């Protein structure tokens, strides 16, 4: 399986810069997710990898071969589309057989391979149905089978799960991950769902406005977000931000009576105001007013069963903060509370550049 290398890739549509100079690499057999909001250029990047779009500038290598001008049919890629893109006039068998017929394989071999992959994906009972006669989940499997049957060297996914209902999505998530691990095909997976990216990929590329913001393991992008965009995009609920903290003696973030110790010393402007960030799970809620803590009032509760999201409205600044708490010892709405942060896991951002300092 090839290694994919994207170097300073640009794709413009007229004046619109869909992809504006991104570089990343996908290792042999790796599963990489391109994550970002809609219109951030992730799908354009994927289609450029597939050969549907030609890059405006930059280079795409499969191993050491420059692929920029190679038509899709020579790239040996398989692709699964969001709307599955099954051929409506062909039945399931013909859909899966389509890429094999393009290769002009003998008839018996086509039948053998189609049946084999259909069995693997548990759709072998549907082979004579038309796509319109099967469910969304089954269509998804057919699309997957069609992408896999030609034994591609690269697999591309364009939001393949977003048309499925939540339960099926969770199931297919694990299934696709397992399948990719078993087959070891180099894969690029486009999604706007951070949970999908976190659970499936070995590395995540976070996109925004045509640029690659951060590229790293799920752990890295979650625990060390490069800027406020990444911090806010990853995690559910996302990271909480509190504004207007000043830094005292390089070690403390201070606002009003709240004084939070930072995990390490920072080199910053003492007079400037910064944004404090913390994840919903890195806080303990305590009733009453604690010395040096951020204080607020419980605004509303969102029970999730396993835990409860406590929404706290901070005093004076009236910022809404979401915090995970165990069900059982949750303060009632309207209670005055203090937020005790896990000081090891506090983040600090520059409000002008939005870049992370901590």
């Amino acid at each position, binding site marked *: 399986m090839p290694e994919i290398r994207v170097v300073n890739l640009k794709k413009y549509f007229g004046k619109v810069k869909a992809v504006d100079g991104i570089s990343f690499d996908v290792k042999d057999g790796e599963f990489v997710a391109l994550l970002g909001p809609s219109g951030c250029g992730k799908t354009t990047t994927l289609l450029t990898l*597939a050969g549907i779009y030609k890059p405006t500038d930059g280079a795409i290598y499969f191993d050491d071969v420059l692929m920029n001008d190679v038509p899709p049919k020579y790239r040996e890629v398989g692709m699964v589309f969001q*709307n599955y*893109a099954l051929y409506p006039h062909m039945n399931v068998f013909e859909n899966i057989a389509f890429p094999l017929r393009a290769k002009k394989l003998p008839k018996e071999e086509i039948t053998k391979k189609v049946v084999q992959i259909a069995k693997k994906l548990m759709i072998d009972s549907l082979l004579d149905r038309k*796509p*319109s006669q099967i469910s969304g989940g089954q269509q998804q499997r057919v699309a997957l089978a*069609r992408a896999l049957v*030609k034994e591609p060297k690269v697999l591309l996914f364009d939001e393949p799960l977003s048309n499925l209902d939540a339960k099926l999505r969770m199931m297919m998530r694990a299934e696709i991950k397992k399948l990719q691990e078993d087959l070891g095909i180099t894969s690029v997976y486009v999604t706007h769902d951070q949970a999908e990216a976190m659970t499936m990929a070995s590395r995540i590329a976070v996109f925004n406005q045509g640029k690659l913001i951060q590229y790293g393991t799920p752990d890295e992008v979650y625990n060390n977000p490069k800027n406020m965009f990444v911090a806010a995009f990853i995690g559910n609920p996302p990271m909480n931000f509190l504004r207007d903290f000043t830094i005292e003696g390089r070690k403390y973030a201070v606002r009003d009576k709240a004084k939070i110790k930072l995990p390490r010393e920072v080199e910053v402007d003492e007079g400037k105001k910064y944004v404090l960030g913390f994840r919903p799970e890195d806080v303990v809620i305590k009733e009453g007013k604690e010395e040096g803590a951020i204080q607020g009032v419980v605004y509303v509760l969102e029970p999730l069963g396993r835990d409860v999201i406590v929404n706290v409205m901070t005093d004076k600044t009236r910022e809404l903060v979401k915090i995970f708490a165990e069900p059982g010892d949750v303060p009632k709405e309207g209670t005055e509370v203090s937020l005790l942060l896990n000081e090891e896991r506090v983040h600090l951002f520059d409000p002008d550049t939005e870049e992370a300092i901590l």
Partner: protein
Amino acid sequence: MEREFKLTFFQRNSEKILNTVIFIILIIVTLPIILGYLWLIIRSFSVDVVRGFIPTQFTLKNWRFLWETMEGYPNIWKATLNTLWVALGVMGIEILTTSMGGYALSRYNFRGRSFTMKFVLVLHAFPTISLLVAVFYVLKVTGLLDKLIGVILLKASLEIPWGTWIMKGFYDGIPWELEWAGLIDGYGRMKVWWKVILPLVKPGIAVTAVFGFLSGWSEFIFVNTFIFTQETWTLSKYVKSIIGDFRFVDYGLVTAIGLFYVIPTLILYFLVSKYMIRLTIGGVKG
């Protein structure tokens, strides 16, 4: 205690009343057409009619043109074949060009695309009559005067703009992903068009084919102007010559031939009506 929600008669029956009104309007509007066809059928099978509608005596004499060549006119079957040839010719050329032209307008972003699309529409807006003199000259120079192929080419070229627009609409309804999937699955663009896209615009092809066929089948002006020899007459010219000649008009004969002329059209409409309905709804769904 239960109480009734009070409604006036009109509030209670508003939908029924509206439907009835619509129905009556539709009947009034379509009545002349229905009566026309009715008269056509009745008249063609009777010796005479009184008060316009009441048949007197059943006869097949009006249909005699089917089994005998009438004096002064060409054989009806020869004229029918000519008409069929024109209809199929226009249809064939139209399918061929619009299925490709519509695809190009829908999928390719080439220089002058929007100009082409507008120009094509303008072309369609030309009244045929205004072209007659110029076209006469063109046909004369190219040696296509008094030949059906000349009429076919002419008629097709005037039908193509509209057909191309229709086909473009159908192509626009097909998601790009299907085309991309075909390319990734290992075919070139032409093959993908042939194997994936074309089967999906079948309804569009059916629609343009029918309209092409019918416009060829019913063509009158070009035939009347550019065709002289009786051997190359089509049915429209045949009908016209029976109505518009020096003798008194034999309405029995006119209605029978008219009916004969209209039958293929009706059959065709029945066959493809489901595609026609889709045309009005717009787009194709798999």
